Protein backbone atom coordinates (compact mmCIF):
# COMPACT_ATOMS: atom_id res chain seq x y z
CA UNK A 1 0.00 0.00 0.00
CA UNK A 2 1.53 3.31 -1.04
CA UNK A 3 1.51 6.50 1.07
CA UNK A 4 -1.11 7.95 -1.23
CA UNK A 5 -3.43 5.07 -0.43
CA UNK A 6 -4.97 6.90 2.51
CA UNK A 7 -5.63 10.50 3.53
CA UNK A 8 -4.00 12.46 6.34
CA UNK A 9 -7.34 12.43 8.16
CA UNK A 10 -7.51 8.68 7.89
CA UNK A 11 -4.03 8.37 9.34
CA UNK A 12 -4.94 10.64 12.26
CA UNK A 13 -8.22 8.86 12.87
CA UNK A 14 -6.44 5.51 12.97
CA UNK A 15 -3.80 6.77 15.39
CA UNK A 16 -6.44 8.22 17.70
CA UNK A 17 -8.66 5.14 17.46
CA UNK A 18 -5.80 2.91 18.54
CA UNK A 19 -5.53 4.97 21.73
CA UNK A 20 -9.10 4.03 22.65
CA UNK A 21 -8.56 0.30 22.78
CA UNK A 22 -9.99 -1.42 25.82
CA UNK A 23 -11.93 1.59 27.06
CA UNK A 24 -15.64 1.48 27.97
CA UNK A 25 -16.86 4.92 27.00
CA UNK A 26 -15.41 7.74 24.92
CA UNK A 27 -17.09 11.10 24.46
CA UNK A 28 -16.53 13.50 21.58
CA UNK A 29 -17.28 17.21 21.74
CA UNK A 30 -19.16 19.32 19.23
CA UNK A 31 -17.49 20.22 15.94
CA UNK A 32 -14.95 17.42 16.20
CA UNK A 33 -15.23 15.31 13.05
CA UNK A 34 -11.80 13.70 13.36
CA UNK A 35 -12.31 12.52 16.95
CA UNK A 36 -15.80 11.34 16.01
CA UNK A 37 -14.27 9.30 13.19
CA UNK A 38 -11.66 7.87 15.54
CA UNK A 39 -14.23 6.95 18.17
CA UNK A 40 -16.52 5.30 15.66
CA UNK A 41 -13.58 3.43 14.15
CA UNK A 42 -12.58 2.15 17.57
CA UNK A 43 -16.17 1.07 18.15
CA UNK A 44 -16.35 -0.66 14.78
CA UNK A 45 -13.26 -2.68 15.71
CA UNK A 46 -14.35 -3.26 19.31
CA UNK A 47 -18.10 -3.50 19.78
CA UNK A 48 -17.80 -2.95 23.55
CA UNK A 49 -16.86 0.72 23.28
CA UNK A 50 -19.70 3.14 23.96
CA UNK A 51 -19.42 6.33 21.92
CA UNK A 52 -21.08 9.62 22.82
CA UNK A 53 -20.91 12.38 20.21
CA UNK A 54 -22.25 15.85 20.95
CA UNK A 55 -24.13 17.16 17.95
CA UNK A 56 -25.26 13.69 16.91
CA UNK A 57 -28.73 12.30 17.38
CA UNK A 58 -27.73 8.68 17.10
CA UNK A 59 -24.73 8.84 19.39
CA UNK A 60 -26.12 11.11 22.07
CA UNK A 61 -28.00 9.21 24.75
CA UNK A 62 -28.30 11.92 27.37
CA UNK A 63 -31.58 12.94 28.96
CA UNK A 64 -30.57 15.42 31.65
CA UNK A 65 -29.81 18.48 29.55
CA UNK A 66 -26.56 20.24 28.75
CA UNK A 67 -25.02 19.48 32.12
CA UNK A 68 -25.13 15.72 31.75
CA UNK A 69 -21.86 15.32 29.83
CA UNK A 70 -20.04 17.17 32.58
CA UNK A 71 -21.77 15.41 35.45
CA UNK A 72 -21.17 12.10 33.71
CA UNK A 73 -17.46 12.85 33.42
CA UNK A 74 -17.26 13.81 37.08
CA UNK A 75 -18.92 10.51 37.98
CA UNK A 76 -16.06 8.71 36.27
CA UNK A 77 -18.26 7.32 33.52
CA UNK A 78 -16.23 8.75 30.61
CA UNK A 79 -12.83 7.22 29.97
CA UNK A 80 -11.57 9.39 27.14
CA UNK A 81 -12.21 12.78 25.55
CA UNK A 82 -10.59 14.82 22.81
CA UNK A 83 -9.51 18.45 23.05
CA UNK A 84 -7.85 20.78 20.60
CA UNK A 85 -6.50 24.31 20.83
CA UNK A 86 -5.71 27.37 18.79
CA UNK A 87 -2.47 27.08 20.73
CA UNK A 88 -1.00 24.12 22.61
CA UNK A 89 2.20 24.50 24.60
CA UNK A 90 4.87 22.17 25.92
CA UNK A 91 3.15 21.93 29.31
CA UNK A 92 0.04 20.71 27.47
CA UNK A 93 -1.77 23.92 28.31
CA UNK A 94 -4.39 24.66 25.68
CA UNK A 95 -5.80 27.98 24.52
CA UNK A 96 -9.22 28.25 22.93
CA UNK A 97 -9.83 31.91 23.74
CA UNK A 98 -7.54 34.13 21.72
CA UNK A 99 -4.12 35.13 20.50
CA UNK A 100 -2.74 38.28 22.11
CA UNK A 101 -3.60 39.93 25.40
CA UNK A 102 -6.85 39.32 27.19
CA UNK A 103 -9.47 40.83 27.21
CA UNK A 104 -8.74 42.55 23.86
CA UNK A 105 -6.82 39.89 21.96
CA UNK A 106 -5.42 40.42 18.49
CA UNK A 107 -7.46 37.46 17.37
CA UNK A 108 -10.43 36.18 19.34
CA UNK A 109 -11.53 32.57 19.12
CA UNK A 110 -14.82 31.02 20.31
CA UNK A 111 -13.94 30.31 23.92
CA UNK A 112 -12.94 27.58 26.32
CA UNK A 113 -16.15 25.52 26.16
CA UNK A 114 -15.86 22.55 28.54
CA UNK A 115 -12.08 22.22 28.33
CA UNK A 116 -11.21 23.81 31.69
CA UNK A 117 -13.32 21.17 33.37
CA UNK A 118 -13.09 18.01 31.30
CA UNK A 119 -9.29 18.23 31.10
CA UNK A 120 -9.20 17.51 34.84
CA UNK A 121 -11.87 14.87 35.05
CA UNK A 122 -11.55 12.55 32.06
CA UNK A 123 -8.72 10.06 32.65
CA UNK A 124 -7.44 9.96 29.09
CA UNK A 125 -7.59 13.24 27.22
CA UNK A 126 -6.25 13.09 23.68
CA UNK A 127 -5.13 16.41 22.22
CA UNK A 128 -5.47 16.70 18.46
CA UNK A 129 -4.74 19.28 15.82
CA UNK A 130 -4.20 18.58 12.15
CA UNK A 131 -2.02 21.64 11.56
CA UNK A 132 1.43 21.02 12.96
CA UNK A 133 3.26 24.36 12.98
CA UNK A 134 5.06 26.59 15.48
CA UNK A 135 2.04 28.90 15.27
CA UNK A 136 -0.10 26.22 16.92
CA UNK A 137 2.46 24.32 18.99
CA UNK A 138 3.88 27.24 20.96
CA UNK A 139 6.33 27.57 23.84
CA UNK A 140 3.63 29.16 25.99
CA UNK A 141 -0.03 29.75 25.25
CA UNK A 142 -1.33 33.33 25.41
CA UNK A 143 -4.34 32.23 27.47
CA UNK A 144 -4.65 29.03 29.47
CA UNK A 145 -8.14 27.76 28.76
CA UNK A 146 -7.23 24.51 30.48
CA UNK A 147 -4.01 23.68 32.29
CA UNK A 148 -1.99 20.64 31.27
CA UNK A 149 -0.60 20.01 34.74
CA UNK A 150 -1.72 20.59 38.29
CA UNK A 151 0.04 20.62 41.65
CA UNK A 152 -0.10 17.26 43.39
CA UNK A 153 -2.71 18.39 45.92
CA UNK A 154 -5.25 19.24 43.22
CA UNK A 155 -8.02 16.69 42.70
CA UNK A 156 -7.36 15.59 39.16
CA UNK A 157 -8.28 12.10 38.01
CA UNK A 158 -7.80 13.19 34.40
CA UNK A 159 -5.47 15.02 32.07
CA UNK A 160 -3.58 14.99 28.79
CA UNK A 161 -2.09 11.67 27.76
CA UNK A 162 -1.51 12.06 23.99
CA UNK A 163 -1.20 14.62 21.23
CA UNK A 164 -1.93 13.64 17.66
CA UNK A 165 -1.22 16.02 14.77
CA UNK A 166 -1.25 15.63 11.02
CA UNK A 167 2.45 14.77 11.22
CA UNK A 168 3.18 13.04 14.48
CA UNK A 169 1.98 11.32 17.62
CA UNK A 170 3.23 12.34 21.06
CA UNK A 171 2.74 10.96 24.52
CA UNK A 172 2.47 13.30 27.49
CA UNK A 173 3.73 12.45 30.94
CA UNK A 174 5.68 13.65 33.94
CA UNK A 175 8.50 14.94 31.76
CA UNK A 176 6.29 16.60 29.16
CA UNK A 177 5.73 15.57 25.57
CA UNK A 178 7.73 12.79 23.97
CA UNK A 179 7.62 11.99 20.29
CA UNK A 180 6.19 8.52 19.68
CA UNK A 181 6.13 8.34 15.90
CA UNK A 182 5.89 10.47 12.79
CA UNK A 183 3.64 10.11 9.81
CA UNK A 184 2.91 11.74 6.48
CA UNK A 185 6.55 11.25 5.60
CA UNK A 186 7.90 13.60 8.27
CA UNK A 187 11.31 13.03 9.86
CA UNK A 188 12.02 13.64 13.53
CA UNK A 189 14.00 16.69 12.50
CA UNK A 190 11.01 17.97 10.51
CA UNK A 191 8.89 17.63 13.62
CA UNK A 192 11.42 19.50 15.74
CA UNK A 193 11.51 22.32 13.22
CA UNK A 194 7.75 22.64 13.10
CA UNK A 195 7.15 22.40 16.86
CA UNK A 196 7.44 25.50 19.01
CA UNK A 197 8.09 23.63 22.24
CA UNK A 198 10.79 21.19 23.27
CA UNK A 199 9.97 17.50 23.58
CA UNK A 200 11.77 14.26 24.30
CA UNK A 201 12.60 11.85 21.57
CA UNK A 202 14.59 8.71 20.99
CA UNK A 203 17.54 8.76 18.62
CA UNK A 204 15.49 6.76 16.16
CA UNK A 205 11.82 7.71 15.91
CA UNK A 206 9.63 5.12 14.22
CA UNK A 207 7.12 5.84 11.51
CA UNK A 208 3.49 5.70 12.59
CA UNK A 209 2.07 2.38 11.43
CA UNK A 210 -0.18 3.24 8.50
CA UNK A 211 -3.88 2.31 8.51
CA UNK A 212 -4.31 -1.43 8.18
CA UNK A 213 -6.69 -3.01 5.73
CA UNK A 214 -9.29 -3.70 8.39
CA UNK A 215 -9.04 -0.16 9.75
CA UNK A 216 -9.39 1.37 6.29
CA UNK A 217 -12.32 -0.84 5.42
CA UNK A 218 -14.11 0.14 8.60
CA UNK A 219 -13.27 3.83 8.12
CA UNK A 220 -14.54 3.97 4.59
CA UNK A 221 -17.56 1.80 5.27
CA UNK A 222 -19.58 2.10 8.48
CA UNK A 223 -17.53 4.93 10.00
CA UNK A 224 -17.82 7.19 6.98
CA UNK A 225 -21.56 6.51 6.81
CA UNK A 226 -22.05 7.34 10.48
CA UNK A 227 -19.85 10.43 10.38
CA UNK A 228 -21.75 11.67 7.33
CA UNK A 229 -24.91 11.91 9.46
CA UNK A 230 -23.22 14.61 11.55
CA UNK A 231 -20.47 16.00 9.27
CA UNK A 232 -21.43 15.41 5.64
CA UNK A 233 -18.85 17.78 4.18
CA UNK A 234 -16.04 16.28 6.26
CA UNK A 235 -17.09 12.73 5.44
CA UNK A 236 -16.98 13.28 1.69
CA UNK A 237 -13.65 15.13 1.90
CA UNK A 238 -11.64 13.22 4.48
CA UNK A 239 -12.18 9.61 3.54
CA UNK A 240 -10.51 8.03 0.52
CA UNK A 241 -11.47 4.84 -1.20
Amino acid at each position, binding site marked *: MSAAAFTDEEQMAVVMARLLRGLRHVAVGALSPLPASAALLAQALDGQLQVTILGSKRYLKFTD*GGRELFDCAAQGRIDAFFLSGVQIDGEANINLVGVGDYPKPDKRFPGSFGSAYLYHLVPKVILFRQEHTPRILVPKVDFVSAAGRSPSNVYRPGGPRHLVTGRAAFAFGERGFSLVSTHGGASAADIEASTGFAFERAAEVPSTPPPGAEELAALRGPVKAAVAEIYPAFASRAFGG
Partner: protein
Amino acid sequence: MTRLVPDLEALLEPVTDGCSVAVPPDYSGVALAATRALLKRGVRHLHLIAVPQAGLQADVLIGAGAVGTLEAAGINLGELGLAPRFTAAVEAGAITMRDATCPAIHAGLQAAEKGIPFLPLRGILGSDLLKVRPDWRVIDNPYGSNDPIVLIPAIRPQVALFHARMADREGNVWVGVRRELMLMAHAAAQACVTVEEIVEGNLLDDPALAAGTIPALYISRIAHVPGGMRPLGFGEEASDEAALAGYAKAARTEDGFQQWLKGWLA
Protein backbone atom coordinates in the same frame (compact mmCIF):
# COMPACT_ATOMS: atom_id res chain seq x y z
CA MET B 1 -54.38 33.83 34.38
CA THR B 2 -53.51 32.75 30.84
CA ARG B 3 -49.87 33.11 29.93
CA LEU B 4 -50.60 33.14 26.22
CA VAL B 5 -49.92 36.57 24.77
CA PRO B 6 -51.04 37.70 21.33
CA ASP B 7 -47.73 38.84 19.87
CA LEU B 8 -43.98 39.17 20.28
CA GLU B 9 -44.29 42.71 21.59
CA ALA B 10 -46.29 41.45 24.55
CA LEU B 11 -44.02 38.44 24.98
CA LEU B 12 -40.93 40.61 25.21
CA GLU B 13 -42.13 43.28 27.64
CA PRO B 14 -40.01 41.75 30.43
CA VAL B 15 -36.85 42.07 28.29
CA THR B 16 -36.02 45.64 29.17
CA ASP B 17 -32.81 47.51 28.34
CA GLY B 18 -29.97 46.24 30.50
CA CYS B 19 -31.85 43.05 31.29
CA SER B 20 -30.00 39.78 31.88
CA VAL B 21 -31.26 37.21 29.40
CA ALA B 22 -30.37 33.53 29.31
CA VAL B 23 -30.46 31.87 25.89
CA PRO B 24 -29.87 28.27 24.79
CA PRO B 25 -27.37 26.89 22.28
CA ASP B 26 -28.22 26.77 18.58
CA TYR B 27 -29.53 23.19 18.70
CA SER B 28 -31.85 23.63 21.65
CA GLY B 29 -34.55 26.07 20.53
CA VAL B 30 -33.36 29.60 19.86
CA ALA B 31 -36.05 32.29 19.85
CA LEU B 32 -34.86 34.07 16.71
CA ALA B 33 -38.18 35.62 15.73
CA ALA B 34 -38.28 37.09 19.24
CA THR B 35 -34.69 38.25 18.82
CA ARG B 36 -35.68 40.10 15.66
CA ALA B 37 -38.57 41.71 17.49
CA LEU B 38 -36.20 42.82 20.25
CA LEU B 39 -33.92 44.46 17.71
CA LYS B 40 -36.84 46.13 15.98
CA ARG B 41 -37.77 47.58 19.34
CA GLY B 42 -34.19 48.75 19.73
CA VAL B 43 -33.24 46.84 22.89
CA ARG B 44 -29.86 47.91 24.35
CA HIS B 45 -27.24 46.88 26.90
CA LEU B 46 -28.40 43.31 27.26
CA HIS B 47 -26.50 41.06 29.63
CA LEU B 48 -26.60 37.97 27.50
CA ILE B 49 -25.99 34.61 29.16
CA ALA B 50 -25.31 31.75 26.75
CA VAL B 51 -26.32 28.38 28.25
CA PRO B 52 -23.55 27.55 27.87
CA GLN B 53 -22.71 28.60 24.32
CA ALA B 54 -24.44 30.48 21.54
CA GLY B 55 -24.15 31.20 17.85
CA LEU B 56 -26.24 33.10 15.35
CA GLN B 57 -28.45 34.79 17.93
CA ALA B 58 -25.55 36.15 19.98
CA ASP B 59 -23.64 37.23 16.89
CA VAL B 60 -26.60 39.16 15.51
CA LEU B 61 -27.41 40.82 18.85
CA ILE B 62 -23.76 41.80 19.29
CA GLY B 63 -23.44 43.05 15.72
CA ALA B 64 -26.55 45.15 16.18
CA GLY B 65 -25.05 46.76 19.27
CA ALA B 66 -27.68 45.35 21.62
CA VAL B 67 -25.30 43.55 23.98
CA GLY B 68 -23.39 45.21 26.80
CA THR B 69 -22.09 42.10 28.54
CA LEU B 70 -21.78 38.55 27.30
CA GLU B 71 -21.31 35.52 29.51
CA ALA B 72 -20.49 32.38 27.55
CA ALA B 73 -18.29 29.31 27.36
CA GLY B 74 -18.05 29.71 23.60
CA ILE B 75 -19.56 31.57 20.66
CA ASN B 76 -19.33 30.31 17.10
CA LEU B 77 -21.45 29.54 14.07
CA GLY B 78 -21.04 25.80 14.34
CA GLU B 79 -19.54 24.25 11.25
CA LEU B 80 -19.52 27.68 9.63
CA GLY B 81 -16.71 28.71 11.95
CA LEU B 82 -16.11 31.84 13.95
CA ALA B 83 -18.94 34.18 14.88
CA PRO B 84 -17.62 37.25 13.10
CA ARG B 85 -19.50 40.02 14.92
CA PHE B 86 -18.65 38.45 18.26
CA THR B 87 -14.94 38.18 17.51
CA ALA B 88 -14.84 41.70 16.05
CA ALA B 89 -16.61 43.13 19.09
CA VAL B 90 -14.24 41.44 21.54
CA GLU B 91 -11.18 42.45 19.52
CA ALA B 92 -12.48 46.04 19.52
CA GLY B 93 -13.32 45.94 23.22
CA ALA B 94 -16.89 46.83 22.34
CA ILE B 95 -18.51 44.40 24.77
CA THR B 96 -17.68 43.19 28.24
CA MET B 97 -16.80 39.53 27.93
CA ARG B 98 -17.27 37.15 30.84
CA ASP B 99 -15.51 34.02 29.64
CA ALA B 100 -16.74 30.82 31.23
CA THR B 101 -16.58 27.07 30.84
CA CYS B 102 -19.74 25.10 30.01
CA PRO B 103 -20.26 23.29 33.33
CA ALA B 104 -19.77 26.53 35.27
CA ILE B 105 -22.74 28.11 33.54
CA HIS B 106 -24.86 25.05 34.24
CA ALA B 107 -23.64 25.08 37.84
CA GLY B 108 -24.43 28.77 38.27
CA LEU B 109 -27.95 28.21 37.03
CA GLN B 110 -28.34 25.16 39.26
CA ALA B 111 -27.30 27.28 42.22
CA ALA B 112 -30.02 29.77 41.30
CA GLU B 113 -32.47 26.90 40.86
CA LYS B 114 -31.68 25.70 44.37
CA GLY B 115 -31.69 29.19 45.86
CA ILE B 116 -28.13 28.81 47.08
CA PRO B 117 -25.37 31.38 46.64
CA PHE B 118 -22.86 29.12 44.91
CA LEU B 119 -21.99 25.64 43.80
CA PRO B 120 -18.54 24.06 44.02
CA LEU B 121 -17.08 22.57 40.87
CA ARG B 122 -14.09 20.37 40.20
CA GLY B 123 -11.53 21.16 37.52
CA ILE B 124 -10.84 24.73 36.30
CA LEU B 125 -7.86 25.20 38.65
CA GLY B 126 -4.86 26.40 36.68
CA SER B 127 -7.02 27.92 33.97
CA ASP B 128 -6.66 31.64 33.26
CA LEU B 129 -10.45 31.74 33.48
CA LEU B 130 -9.92 32.05 37.24
CA LYS B 131 -7.86 35.19 36.65
CA VAL B 132 -10.49 36.85 34.49
CA ARG B 133 -13.44 35.69 36.61
CA PRO B 134 -12.78 37.11 40.06
CA ASP B 135 -16.32 36.08 40.98
CA TRP B 136 -15.14 32.47 40.79
CA ARG B 137 -13.53 31.87 44.15
CA VAL B 138 -11.20 29.13 45.29
CA ILE B 139 -11.61 27.72 48.78
CA ASP B 140 -10.12 24.78 50.59
CA ASN B 141 -12.69 21.97 50.47
CA PRO B 142 -14.06 21.80 54.03
CA TYR B 143 -14.41 18.04 53.58
CA GLY B 144 -10.81 17.59 52.45
CA SER B 145 -7.43 18.85 53.47
CA ASN B 146 -5.27 21.04 51.29
CA ASP B 147 -7.83 20.40 48.56
CA PRO B 148 -8.58 23.59 46.63
CA ILE B 149 -11.93 23.73 44.90
CA VAL B 150 -13.59 26.38 42.74
CA LEU B 151 -16.89 28.01 43.71
CA ILE B 152 -19.25 29.29 41.02
CA PRO B 153 -21.75 31.94 42.14
CA ALA B 154 -25.43 31.62 41.28
CA ILE B 155 -26.55 32.93 37.89
CA ARG B 156 -30.03 34.42 38.23
CA PRO B 157 -31.17 35.67 34.82
CA GLN B 158 -34.01 38.15 34.81
CA VAL B 159 -35.40 36.43 31.75
CA ALA B 160 -35.00 33.03 30.11
CA LEU B 161 -35.84 33.34 26.40
CA PHE B 162 -36.25 30.31 24.15
CA HIS B 163 -38.30 28.51 21.54
CA ALA B 164 -40.01 25.20 22.31
CA ARG B 165 -41.98 22.53 20.52
CA MET B 166 -45.35 23.08 22.16
CA ALA B 167 -47.34 24.55 25.00
CA ASP B 168 -50.85 24.03 26.30
CA ARG B 169 -53.38 26.71 27.24
CA GLU B 170 -52.55 26.22 30.93
CA GLY B 171 -49.08 27.57 30.20
CA ASN B 172 -47.14 24.30 30.43
CA VAL B 173 -44.28 24.04 27.92
CA TRP B 174 -42.89 20.79 26.53
CA VAL B 175 -39.12 20.68 25.97
CA GLY B 176 -38.44 16.93 25.97
CA VAL B 177 -34.84 16.02 26.68
CA ARG B 178 -33.78 19.66 26.38
CA ARG B 179 -33.59 19.95 30.15
CA GLU B 180 -31.28 22.99 30.00
CA LEU B 181 -34.42 24.91 29.03
CA MET B 182 -36.13 23.69 32.20
CA LEU B 183 -33.08 24.66 34.24
CA MET B 184 -33.15 28.13 32.67
CA ALA B 185 -36.84 28.54 33.47
CA HIS B 186 -36.30 27.41 37.06
CA ALA B 187 -33.32 29.73 37.54
CA ALA B 188 -34.72 32.84 35.85
CA ALA B 189 -37.18 35.28 37.39
CA GLN B 190 -39.28 35.07 34.24
CA ALA B 191 -39.41 32.72 31.26
CA CYS B 192 -40.62 34.04 27.90
CA VAL B 193 -41.18 31.32 25.36
CA THR B 194 -42.17 31.08 21.71
CA VAL B 195 -43.66 27.77 20.62
CA GLU B 196 -44.32 25.91 17.41
CA GLU B 197 -47.73 24.79 18.50
CA ILE B 198 -50.45 25.31 21.09
CA VAL B 199 -52.02 21.97 21.99
CA GLU B 200 -55.39 21.29 23.56
CA GLY B 201 -55.58 19.57 26.92
CA ASN B 202 -52.97 19.61 29.65
CA LEU B 203 -49.47 18.36 28.87
CA LEU B 204 -49.03 17.28 32.48
CA ASP B 205 -51.96 14.86 32.20
CA ASP B 206 -50.00 12.62 29.82
CA PRO B 207 -47.35 10.67 31.80
CA ALA B 208 -45.00 10.50 28.81
CA LEU B 209 -45.25 14.19 27.88
CA ALA B 210 -45.25 15.33 31.51
CA ALA B 211 -41.70 14.04 31.93
CA GLY B 212 -40.47 16.65 29.42
CA THR B 213 -42.71 19.51 30.43
CA ILE B 214 -41.90 22.75 32.25
CA PRO B 215 -44.90 23.45 34.51
CA ALA B 216 -46.70 26.76 33.98
CA LEU B 217 -45.52 27.85 37.42
CA TYR B 218 -42.17 28.75 35.87
CA ILE B 219 -43.48 30.30 32.66
CA SER B 220 -44.37 33.99 32.43
CA ARG B 221 -45.38 34.45 28.82
CA ILE B 222 -45.90 32.28 25.76
CA ALA B 223 -46.37 33.41 22.18
CA HIS B 224 -47.42 31.11 19.36
CA VAL B 225 -44.73 31.67 16.70
CA PRO B 226 -44.38 28.72 14.34
CA GLY B 227 -40.85 28.65 12.91
CA GLY B 228 -39.73 31.03 15.64
CA MET B 229 -36.24 29.45 15.58
CA ARG B 230 -35.63 29.77 11.83
CA PRO B 231 -33.24 29.69 10.05
CA LEU B 232 -31.89 27.43 12.80
CA GLY B 233 -33.20 23.91 12.97
CA PHE B 234 -34.97 22.25 15.82
CA GLY B 235 -35.73 18.69 16.75
CA GLU B 236 -36.43 16.85 13.53
CA GLU B 237 -36.39 20.04 11.44
CA ALA B 238 -33.07 20.80 9.74
CA SER B 239 -31.43 24.21 9.68
CA ASP B 240 -31.64 26.35 6.58
CA GLU B 241 -27.98 25.86 5.71
CA ALA B 242 -28.05 28.31 2.82
CA ALA B 243 -29.44 31.08 4.98
CA LEU B 244 -26.88 30.37 7.70
CA ALA B 245 -24.02 30.32 5.16
CA GLY B 246 -25.35 33.59 3.76
CA TYR B 247 -25.21 35.12 7.20
CA ALA B 248 -21.72 33.82 7.90
CA LYS B 249 -20.46 35.32 4.64
CA ALA B 250 -22.23 38.66 5.02
CA ALA B 251 -21.20 39.11 8.66
CA ARG B 252 -17.51 38.84 7.87
CA THR B 253 -17.49 42.61 7.48
CA GLU B 254 -19.29 45.32 9.42
CA ASP B 255 -20.84 46.62 6.20
CA GLY B 256 -21.94 43.20 5.11
CA PHE B 257 -23.52 42.59 8.50
CA GLN B 258 -25.36 45.92 8.52
CA GLN B 259 -26.80 45.16 5.12
CA TRP B 260 -27.87 41.69 6.25
CA LEU B 261 -29.43 43.16 9.37
CA LYS B 262 -31.38 45.72 7.38
CA GLY B 263 -32.82 42.92 5.29
CA TRP B 264 -33.61 40.80 8.35
CA LEU B 265 -35.40 43.60 10.16
CA ALA B 266 -37.28 44.79 7.06
